[in-house]
Structures are given as structure tokens and as C-alpha cells.
């Protein structure tokens, strides 16, 4: 073996990153060893801390190292508005859209052929939150896939039973989008979800 075993270990470990194959892992390893040992140490400790300490918010299930995440514990957020999303990345996206309510993160969607059922999405917790009585509207922001629709439908039945208003985010023409480039599925969604102007 020409390279040291520690180096091999590092290269193999780096391959766990998305989009990183062996070649790139090698390049990254040499770069860190030659030019940025300090940055690499910071990365190592940040990774260590994150993996050890980040869990799920007991209320919304989003990633956090706290018991209650910063959104759930923020008194300026509108607690009467609850947005249900599939993943923490979706929370990021909705946050960018200047949303001021709170979230519930499913960490997936209903997928019976993969064995993912309602109990895997924390729906009991969601039901509990709705029963507290503070939530006035639930916004279903699951993906616009068949699984996402099935999940939205399943949850909306739960919401209705709690006599709470439920809405689905609109799907349609992207801002700045030109009609001729939009696929017919999106366009038909946009047409059926049209509003008066």
C-alpha cells in the first residue's frame, strides 16, 4: 500500500458526503492536509458536535439541539398558523417565503410500499398539537407528488376532525415563468386553482 492507512481512512470517510466519489475525496484530503489543517479541525469538531447533539424538536420534529426549537419557542411567531412539510429542507424554503407561522415536519411522506405509514410521520403528536386548541389553520405544504398528495389528504382528514380549517398550497406557474415552457400537468393544476382578479 502506497498511502498511509490514516489517509485511507479519511478518504473512505469523506465518501459518505453526497456527490463525493473516491477521486474527489482524495483531492479534498490532500487539500486539507496541505493547506487547511485548521479549517479541517473546525469541521471535525462541528461534525462531532452536530452529530452528538442535534436531535428533533419535541414539538415540530425539526432538527435542533434544543428540546424546543427556536421557531417553536419564539413568541413572535403566529401559533395559530401551522404549516405541515415533508422535510427540514422544506422548512428552510418556506422560511425564505416570509412565512410567520409555525411548522410540523413529517420527516417523509406516506409510502406504503416502503413500509412508511402514519405512525412513522409523528401524526399522533400533530393530533395532540391540534387538540391544544391554539391552531386555527393548517397549511398542507407536502410535495406535489402522488405520495405527497396522499399524505396531505390523510392529514387533512385528521385536521377536519379537529374542526380546524385546512388548506393546500397552490401549485402552478412559477413567478417569471413563460406558459409555453410549462408542462401540461403544472398548467392544468394552475388552471383548476385559478382565482378571480
Amino acid at each position, binding site marked *: 500500500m502506497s498511502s498511509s492507512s490514516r489517509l485511507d481512512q479519511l478518504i473512505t470517510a469523506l465518501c459518505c458526503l453526497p*456527490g463525493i466519489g473516491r477521486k474527489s475525496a482524495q483531492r479534498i484530503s490532500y487539500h486539507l492536509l496541505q493547506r487547511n489543517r485548521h479549517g479541517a479541525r473546525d469541521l471535525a469538531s462541528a461534525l462531532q458536535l452536530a452529530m452528538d447533539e442535534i436531535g428533533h424538536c419535541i414539538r415540530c420534529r425539526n432538527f435542533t439541539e434544543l428540546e424546543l426549537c427556536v421557531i417553536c419557542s419564539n413568541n413572535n411567531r403566529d401559533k395559530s398558523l401551522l404549516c405541515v412539510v415533508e422535510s427540514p429542507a422544506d422548512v428552510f424554503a418556506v422560511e425564505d417565503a416570509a412565512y410567520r407561522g409555525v411548522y410540523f415536519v413529517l420527516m417523509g411522506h406516506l409510502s*406504503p*410500499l416502503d413500509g*412508511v405509514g402514519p405512525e412513522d410521520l409523528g401524526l399522533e403528536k400533530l393530533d395532540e398539537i391540534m387538540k391544544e386548541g391554539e391552531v386555527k389553520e393548517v397549511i398542507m405544504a407536502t410535495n406535489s407528488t*402522488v405520495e405527497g398528495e*396522499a399524505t396531505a389528504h390523510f392529514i387533512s382528514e385528521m385536521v377536519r376532525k379537529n374542526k380546524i380549517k385546512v388548506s393546500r398550497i397552490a401549485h402552478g406557474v412559477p413567478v417569471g415563468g413563460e406558459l409555453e415552457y410549462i408542462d401540461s400537468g403544472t398548467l392544468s393544476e394552475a388552471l383548476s386553482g385559478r382565482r378571480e382578479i
Partner: protein
Amino acid sequence: MRVDLHPCYVLHTRPYRETSLLVDILSSDYGRLCLVAKGVKRAKNNKANLLQISKRISLAWSQRGTLGNLIEVEDLGDRVNLIGSKIISCFYMNELLMRMLHTNEPHPEIFDIYQQTLTNLTQNQDEQKTLRIFEKKILQVLGYGLILDHDANTGEQIDANNKYYYVAEFGPCMSKNNGLQSIQISGKALKALDDENIWDNDIAKEAKRLLRMLLKIHVGDKPFGSRELYRAYLQNITAV
């Protein structure tokens, strides 16, 4: 081998590496098979949007060995819109086919049955009845057809007022056959499943028990995720 664009349905997709999908499909010409859809989960690739269950689409792929490599997806403008429990029914149809069909075995009749069943679901026909007929037809095409019109022992026509034993891999008869699995079923339910016409709650229950027993022989004891989801869904909409 290159397979040109032709009608297909997606049965199931699974993530594969970071940006790809493994797509199980039902092809009108090639039966059930698995395709690798490379890079479809990249932000600028909109092929993944079309790879949805319950939508009739057109696919082309190249094939070496058992896996195909997806080349092209075309929207066939299919606006089949399943809602609520109908989506769960579609999950069930897919799960059943995934477990009943071997890969790379052409079954054009099954494609037609699948398509017809989806249409019936969207046209608000009785969901349970639609699924039972789907199961019956799949068994038929695969060579395990049910006997529903005559007594398998005597050859006499089924009498709606009689009680029968349906013996697995044999058929309906007046007596149990020791050693072989069987269930009791009314002549009325046998005739209803045969005619695909009249239907009520009792028939639905009996037909379900019969088909469960017969399907189990081929798919085994492993529970169906989609049946469990359906149960949870029913509880969800009825419980107060």
C-alpha cells in the same frame, strides 16, 4: 437493446445514489421491470415530475441484463386524478403487481386491466368491487383463474341460494377437501364475482376473504403496507 417510447405506468420509485431513482414500471410491451433513472433528481431535470404513479406516460430505455437505463420520458397528457382513498387503492394495485409479477415477462393483458381499473377508480365505481375484480383478473391472466360458475366436483351450475366451500387450487364444491385450504362462501357471492354486476356489503366481505386466501398462496404472509394504510385511513375518517 434500445426500447422505443411506448406506454407505461410507474409502480414504485426508490432513491438511488444522490440524484437518481430506481423506477419499477409496468410496460405495455415488456411487463414489469426496473429502470435506473440517472440524474433525474437534479434541480433542473424535470423528468422526475413525470415519473409518478397512476399516470400513463411514455418511456424509452436501453437495456442490458435485467436493469434498464431510462433514456426518455414523455407526458401522455394523462390527467387521471386519483384522490383520497383512491390513491391508496392504486398503491395496493402496485404493491400486488410488484409481488405477483416476475420482472421481464411481457403481459399486455395486465397493462390493459391495470389501465381499466384506474379508469374505474376515477369514475367513482365501487372501490372494493373494482379492486376485487382487479385481483380476480390478475389471477386469471397468470393462469390461476377462479372457478365461479360451476361446482368443481359435479360440474353443476352455481346456485345463488347454496353455500359452498371454495377449495384453494380446486374450486367451489359442496364439501370440504381435507388437507387443502378452503373457506365457506355463498353461491350469491360466487355469482356476483363472476358477473361483476350486483354488489353489496355481504358480497364484498365474502369476495375479499376468498381473494385474500387465493392471493396468499402466491404472495405469502408478509403484510401489505397499502392494506395497513387503508385500515389506518378508514379509522382516521371514522373515529371521533
